[in-house]
């Protein structure tokens, strides 16, 4: 059995700081078509997949190291445009299959509550169209 902390996502070959939860969701991209031969019944085909990674973590003011993306790095990536906005993704399972692809950050949120018992947190979403098992 693999414990949850052993499944992680890497962005640009680096781990993200303070991650408390990763989620991966694969949704099919479909295309609808209809021609006369279909006799009025629409045809739907899966033409691809969108993989969405949702990452929750803690805001850490100590900053990252050379192998860790800190919160400032994540804001920079979320605000990037053009080719700079494309990130390399690796979804890593301990002692298991890894998956690779490229994606873009589609959302970044920081939450800073007043309650001293609650931690400041961030959440990040990345969408990827080309996730595949790494060789």
């Amino acid at each position: 059995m693999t414990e949850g902390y052993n499944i992680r996502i890497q962005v640009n070959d680096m781990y993200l700081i303070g991650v408390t939860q990763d989620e991966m969701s694969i949704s099919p991209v479909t295309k609808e078509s209809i021609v006369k031969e279909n006799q009025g019944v629409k045809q739907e085909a899966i033409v691809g997949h969108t993989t969405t990674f949702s990452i929750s973590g803690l805001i850490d003011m100590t900053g990252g190291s050379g192998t860790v993306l800190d919160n400032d790095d994540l804001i920079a990536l979320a605000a990037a445009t053009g080719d700079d906005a494309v990130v390399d993704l690796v979804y890593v399972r301990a002692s298991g299959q890894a998956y690779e692809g490229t994606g873009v950050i589609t959302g970044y949120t920081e939450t800073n509550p007043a309650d001293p018992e609650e931690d400041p947190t961030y959440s990040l979403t990345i969408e990827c169209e080309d996730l595949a098992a790494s060789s």
Partner: protein
Amino acid sequence: MTENIGSTLVAACAALENPITVFLSEAVSEDYPYAVYEADYEPSYDKDGIYKIVGELAVRGYSKDYSEAAALAAAIDDVILSTFASNGYTVRQVSQLKKECLQETWSVGYQYRITQFRN
């Protein structure tokens, strides 16, 4: 990361100019005054392991004399609030504990919430 709130408290009280003997849970002395603390710790995790430990500590000063017990509790209060104000900790005094006199021994103390963060 391992919890070191209790040991830090004991060491800080022992390093005072007038050292205070602090026991965990139960006093093993009848040499008054002394202090006893009870602690409950809860760790929080991220993917790299424990990133913080929240400790709920109730610390009481014991003496045959009320004034001495109150002074002891105040001295410990100063130690806790200064020791755990930085260096990877945060501290809040949550409440004052009920003052008690059992078998002619007074106890006065406070409850604290001390958080130890990963460095």
